[in-house]
Each structure stands twice: as C-alpha cells, then as structure tokens.
C-alpha cells in the first residue's frame, strides 16, 4: 500500500466481542469484500452457545430438521467428545440459504468472530451464490421453508401412523440417501408454498399410475418380445426416485417421506462435490480480507497474530506417516491452490507459462472468480493443480492392487509424475469413483416383482460388507425380493446379494 501513511485507527484492541464490534467488523469486511467483487446473499449472523452449536451439528448443520434417532446419536457423540475435550467445536457453521445463515459461537474472541465473518459470511456465502453446481442443484431461498414443511409433515405422519413406522421408513431411506440424487438432470426447484398443495395431488396421481406396472389385466402375450423387455427401460441411478415412483406397496405418505429424504440429499450433493474448492475459497478470502484490513490499519498486530495462529492450524497438512493423518486436508489443498492461482497470475515462472498458458499473467481476480464459478473439485484439480503445488505438498501416488502382495509407488513429484498425480488426485475427488455405482437394472414385472440392481464395478472394487444390510432396507421399501449383482465391465456377474437371504440357496 502506497498510501499507508493514512492509516486508520483499529476497530478494536481487546479480545472481548460485543454486538457493536461484530457489526463494525462486518461493515468493514463487507466493504473490502465488495472491492474484490464478492457477490453474496444477505447475511444473517446468529450468535449461539456451544450447546446450540452441538444441536446444530446433530441436525447436519441445519437450523431445523425432522426428528430421527440417528441425529440423537450424532448429538450424543458430539457432546461426549466435546466434554472429554477430544474435539473442539467448529468455530462456525454456515448454511446455503438466502439469507445465508452463519452461526458464531459466543465463546469466540472478537478476532475469531471477525475471522468467521470473513470466512463464512463472505467466503462460503459467495461460493454458494456463485458456483454453478449450487446454482443448478439447490434453491437457497427455499430450503428453510422446505425443511419446515418436511419437519411438519413427518411429525404429522408420526402422529397418524406411529413413531416406529416412520422411523423404520426413515432408516431405510437414510441407508439409500446417497442414491437419492439426480446427477445429470436438474431437479425441479423446491417450491415451499406450493409443496403442501401439490403433495396431495401427487399422492393421488402416483397411486393411480402405479397400475401400469402392476396391472393385473392380462396383456396380449408377445412371446417373442418378452425376453428383451425390461423395466425401467433405461437403468435408473436415483434409487430413491425409482422407489418413490414405482414401489408397489408404499402408502402415499411413505412416498412423500422418501421424497423428502431424496430432496434433502439432493440439496447436500453439491457440498460433497466442492469441499476442497469451497473451503479453499473461504480460507483464501478470510486470509486476503483480513490482511487487507490490516494494511489499512483497521486491525492490530495482536489481532493478526491470533488470526494467523488459527489460520495456520486450519490449513496444516500432516504428512502421511503420522498417527493422526486423516487423508488430504481439503482446507490445505484448496487454500494453497487458490493462492497458487493468484501467484501464477501475478508472478508466473517459466514452468507456469508452460503449464498454464491461458492464465499465467492474467488478472488474478477474474481468473479466480472464473475458477470458483465453473468448476467442482474434480475438474478444479485437473485444471489448476500446478507442479509447484505437487512439489510443495510432496504428493505421491500409491497403487494398491489386491492381487499383488506389494504396494507400489507409481508417481512422485517429478517431471514425469506431475501429470499423473494431477489425474490421480482429481479421480480421487470424483464422487462417481468414491461411491459404488449402483443402478436399478430390472424389475420382474410379469413374475415375482423382484427388483434387480446392478453394481457396475470400478477398478474391480467389490462392495463393502454392509451391502446386505442396505439390501434389507431396500427390501423394506420395495416390498418384494431384491437382488444386487456386481458386474464387471465385460458384463460378467462376479457377486450377487439377495434379500431375503434364503434366495441364495435357490439361486445357486
């Protein structure tokens, strides 16, 4: 800063926070954020206690949610860990809604509050508003109303059909929650006000149109066509959607609950796909914004020391060989990549010019905004992970082939390894690889109504041991026999699971 002589006086010097101070910091941070073109939803900053923070944790961060024992389990676990000191609570939780709700804990110092405001209210918030996945798949202005509707609807169902019946159903839906997501087509936006009215119409409609599947009126036998006829005609990857629309025995209210779980799962889907970018973006901006304030003289050196202390611990990456290593820290990876992009734009080296001819030397703010808007973790890494980053983090790839006794180091941070590590890391963030690819393959419409799923194996990886448990849940929803086959790319079935189990003897 060349005009550094005209320094302002700091906003605060102590560590206690007050509402006036929070407001003052928010105003300044908002001003600076606007200079960097951060476009956000309005902020709703809520100060809460640690107990309320644990409540928020337990209901997947949402300010309200329906009741389920698994949230209770989550709460009990959080509470226990917190009391034993095994874990600190997050400083903040931020919700992708409009207005964007951010929780600040009352225990935080004013420095932490300012950090959280910069991180959540301007970092995450602008990401929620700008990133294409969130824009496409979530409806920030409707989510709170939808949750309200869901909570009310489920508690009404509990009253009418009993807590246990609802709980069983939710258990089953939760088991399939990851498979309640449309990956390629945009779902209809959540429409809270209409939701209730439409819901009844939907109930009736579905119930009437189920009959196509279960029509007992005999159709003309086209014996030659019979073989190739499958239902559904195209494999369906959204299992909960398929259940909601086609499960023969579900009551209307059960379909509605399946739908609720599916909708909520869809809402969280972009967050799973953009963890690295989202956290990286937020960390980059709290760092940049607070430094900007410091350069203007609005915060003290003591403030910066405290801020940098927590900043560095957040973006610390433990090496792979320490006991508490827990995978690659998304904060580290994301933050460093964002900084790296800025570096490539501002001070490109020859290597950067070779690897990133498009962005080397370009305007860093435009480039960064462009990255935030148009990428998800997988493509972001594939596009922007630079050789320097790979060297700095000393990344290496291990190949684990179950057929061989040894693990093999396939790539390290050298000239020949950069490209491969970049691809390997990107693949690691591809949700399609992380979760088994399971789709509805067929329903035996003319026979026992058995549902067959196919698991399309990726790199020969088999399903985990809880699969038969999940099948039981699916069986509960479907109401008839359920089969699951793991299929190799060439079409051979390697393993199959059945529910009920006794089918195994008959089948083998």
């Amino acid at each position, binding site marked *: 800063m060349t005009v550094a002589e005209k320094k302002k006086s700091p906003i605060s010097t102590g560590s206690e926070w007050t509402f006036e101070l*929070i407001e003052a910091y*928010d105003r300044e941070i908002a001003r600076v954020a606007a200079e960097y073109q951060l476009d956000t939803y*309005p*902020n*709703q900053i*809520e*100060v809460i*206690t640690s107990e*309320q923070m644990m*409540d928020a944790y*337990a*209901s997947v961060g949402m300010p309200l949610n329906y*009741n389920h*024992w*698994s949230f*209770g*389990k989550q709460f009990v676990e959080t509470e226990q860990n917190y009391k034993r000191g095994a874990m600190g609570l997050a400083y903040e939780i931020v919700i992708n809604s409009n207005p964007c709700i951010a929780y600040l804990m009352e225990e935080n110092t004013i420095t932490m509050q300012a950090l959280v405001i910069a991180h959540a209210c301007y970092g995450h918030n602008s990401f929620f508003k700008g990133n294409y996945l969130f824009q496409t798949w979530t409806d920030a202005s409707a989510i709170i109303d939808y949750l309200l509707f869901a909570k009310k609807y489920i508690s009404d169902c509990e009253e009418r059909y009993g*807590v246990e019946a609802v*709980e069983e159903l939710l258990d089953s839906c939760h088991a399939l929650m*990851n*498979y309640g997501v449309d990956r390629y087509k945009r779902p209809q936006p959540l429409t809270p006000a209409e939701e209730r009215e439409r819901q009844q119409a939907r109930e009736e409609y579905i119930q009437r149109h189920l009959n196509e599947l279960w029509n007992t009126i005999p159709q003309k036998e086209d014996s030659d066509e019979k073989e190739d006829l499958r239902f559904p005609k195209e494999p369906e990857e959204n299992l909960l959607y398929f259940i909601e629309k086609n499960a023969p025995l579900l009551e209307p209210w059960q379909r509605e609950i399946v739908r609720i779980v599916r909708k909520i799962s869809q809402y969280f889907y972009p967050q799973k796909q953009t963890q690295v970018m989202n956290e990286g973006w937020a960390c980059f901006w709290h760092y940049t914004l607070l430094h900007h304030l410091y350069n203007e003289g609005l915060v003290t050196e003591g403030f910066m020391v405290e801020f940098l202390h927590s900043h560095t611990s957040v973006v610390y990456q433990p*090496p*792979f060989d320490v006991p508490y290593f827990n*995978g690659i820290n998304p904060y580290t990876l994301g933050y460093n990549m964002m900084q790296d992009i800025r570096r490539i734009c501002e001070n490109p080296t020859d290597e950067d010019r070779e690897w990133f001819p498009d962005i080397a030397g370009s305007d860093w703010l435009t480039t960064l905004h462009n990255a935030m808007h148009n990428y998800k973790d997988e493509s972001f890494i594939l596009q922007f992970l630079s050789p320097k980053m790979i060297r700095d*983090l*000393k*990344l*290496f*790839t*291990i*190949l*684990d082939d*179950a057929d061989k*006794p*040894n*693990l*093999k*180091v*396939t790539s*390290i941070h050298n000239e*020949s*390894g950069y490209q491969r*590590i970049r691809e*390997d890391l990107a693949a*690691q963030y591809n949700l399609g690889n*992380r*979760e*088994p690819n399971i789709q509805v393959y067929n329903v035996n419409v003319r026979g026992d109504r058995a549902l067959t799923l196919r698991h399309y*194996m*990726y*790199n*020969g*990886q*088999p399903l*985990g*041991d*809880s*699969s038969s*448990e*999940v099948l039981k849940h699916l069986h509960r929803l479907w109401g008839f026999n359920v089969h699951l086959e793991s299929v190799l790319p060439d079409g051979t079935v390697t393993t199959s699971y059945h529910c009920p189990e006794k089918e195994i003897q008959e089948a083998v």
Partner: protein
Amino acid sequence: MSYIIDRRLNSKKKSTVNRQRFLKRYKKHIKRAVEESVNTRSIKEIEQGGSVTIPRRDLSEPVFHHGEGGVRKRVFPGNKEFMEGDEFRRPSGGGGGGSGKGQASNSGEGMDEFTFNIDQDEFLDFMFDGLELPFLVKKQLKDSTQYETRRAGFTNSGSPEKLHVVRSLRAAHARRIALSGSQRKQIRENKKQIWELEKLLPDQDAQNKINLLQEEIDELTARIKRLPFIDDFDLKYNNMVKVPVPSSKAVMFCVMDVSGSMTQSIKDIAKRFFILLYLFLKRNYKRIEVVFVRHHTHAKEVDEEEFFYSRETGGTIVSSALSLTGDIIHDRYPASEWNIYVAQASDGDNWDGDSDTCRQLLANRVLPSVQYFAYVEITTGPHQNLWLEYERLREEFPEEFAMHQIEGPADIYPVFRKLFEKKTESAA
C-alpha cells in the same frame, strides 16, 4: 446487508427428542451396560448417572460403500524417501494404504466402541426398568383409608365460605334476564311506536300518545328494577367430595444379622442390596422411612451408621429381630396407612431351636401386615435350618414372601431383579 441476531436465549435442548429416540432404540444395550456398572460400582456411586458403552457395529447405519479389494490409487502428501517404482509390503491393520478416504480412517483408528453419558434419572430408569413393587395395585384398592377432598363441580347449598361468587352472580344475571323478558319486549315496542309518532309532531294527538307510551315505559322500567339483584336460589357453592387416596407412604425395614459370622464383605453385599431397595422404593413413593433393625442374640433399632459399621460378636437369634420388627410395625406403622416392606439379610446362621419360632412369628405377626418380605441369604455354603423353615413360609405366602441366595457381589443386582420382576399378571 447483514443482520446480526442473538440466538443465545433460544431453547437449547433442540436435540432432546432425538436423544430420547436414540436411547429408546438402544434400550437393550444400555440396560446391559447399566446392569454391569451396577454390579461393579461402589455404594456411594450407585445412584449417579454414568457412562454407557455400546459396540459401534451395533449402531452403524449401513450404506453402500466399496470393500477391500480391487485396484485403487491414492495420493498422499509428505513424501520423504519414496522413488517412482518403489514397492513395499502392504501394511497390516486395515486402512493404511487401502480403501476410500472416509473408511480408511474410521477402521484404522479403531474407534469400535461408542461411549456416552446418561444422567442420574435416566440411569435409575434403566436400572429399574421392568421392575415393580409387588401387589402395589391390590393394596391401593383394598385398604384406602386416607381421604382427600377434591373439588367436584358446584352445588346449590353449602357453607358460606364455599360460596362461588362468579357462578352466583352469573346465575343471578341469567335469572334477571329471564324474568324481565316480557317487560323489555314491551318497552322495545313502545319505543318503536314513539319513534314513529315523533315523525308526526307537532301533532297534539301524537304528543298525547307519546306521553302515554312514555308513562308505560317508565312503569315497566320500574318493575324491572324491582326484580331482586340476587336471590337465594342464585347462590352456587363449590362442591367438595372426599376421595379415598391410596397411601403413598412407605416404610422399609432393613433387618440384618450382625453376629460374629457376618464379615464386613457380607455386610457390604447386604448394604448394597438395601440401597437398591431403598432407591427403588423412593421412586415409587412420595415419602419413605427407613427403619434399621440389627440383631445378634438381641435385636435393637439403630441408626444407619451403627447398622452398617459397628461390629458385634456372639450367637444369633433371628426371632429377636422379627419380633422387634413386629412390635415397631404395631406401634408406629399401622398397616392401613403405611406400605411396609421388609428386607432381611443374613448369612443363614441361626440358633437351632429358633428357626421354627421365626417362621411362626413371621406367619402370625409380620407377614399379614407387610406388602413384601424379601429375604436374602448371603452365603456360599449349604443352607441351614433357617432357609428350610423359610421355604415352608414361601409356600404358605407365595405372594408376600420371597427369598433368594446371593453368593457374591455380582449376584446382587440379578437377585434384586428377580425379587421384583413384574408379576402383575400372575397376581391378578
């Protein structure tokens, strides 16, 4: 634009419902954990809440995920010495180089137990879940000699202090309306006529008619006014009825042998048993008294400290304690008012000729007035004649009399459960 909201005063217990559902779902597990901890706890801690541990695999929510096997690549940070093409043995112990991100850490760190705390009330709930006081119901219906006055609507007669002012005035108001109905109707009609006649003014004839009507109105109004403001039959009184209430007082007798043969460890076992019983009764009765009777060859009523900790030597005459118990019941705790529970602990020793007396004492004096008599014999040896005599009693009084043997501290809680198992159906 930002809004800053202070939510700290909002309700905190948002997760209570979910937590309750979680506890309910894992009731069986928690109960087992509670049982184990009751057995191992010291006496002072017995009433506190505690931690409960459940195997994590029982809690898991299944999802589809990748299992071990197949080919996978994983990128790690912090390379130190590896070169491209290096090979090394697969580390044993699960996750190391293996599965997808989340699972590797979960199985690697060995968090296979799920531990959490429950508070004192919850602890006791689980501890006494499924237990009940024998024949509590029966007793309540049979001898309800205590009464409570309760309000039961209103009556037309009663003493002045039970007068219900609002009801009385309401009744008076209703009466006045009812009795003045025809007059008020007349007044309304007259007024209407006057109003119409006033249009004809200043006609003399109309003026006369108006005057007549007005006089009539005045007369009627006066008549309405003469209606009494309040009358005898307007008065309403609070109606109080006497309702028999089951006695909610209980007294618990702790009877213990303190002769030479009772070692401190046996006494500790007995004490735990008594404490369990006390806690259990406390949950069922508003008020509970405890009487400590200890005996060797003589019986004596003592305070708690002396009961558990002073040592005596000498022979054993159980009947002395039973007879003292009988006296105390007779003098201070009439069976019509008190629910009486007796718990007797002994190592089974008794002076030879005395056991028969004990049986008769119990059968004639004690058992008829008590709710439940529980005898625990804390011994590892063979039963002696007291046990044999008591067995006869059990046959005679299968409902009021129960006995069990405790061999070590681990038996206390199971035996306690056995003594107080729900048996309403068989009793009914």
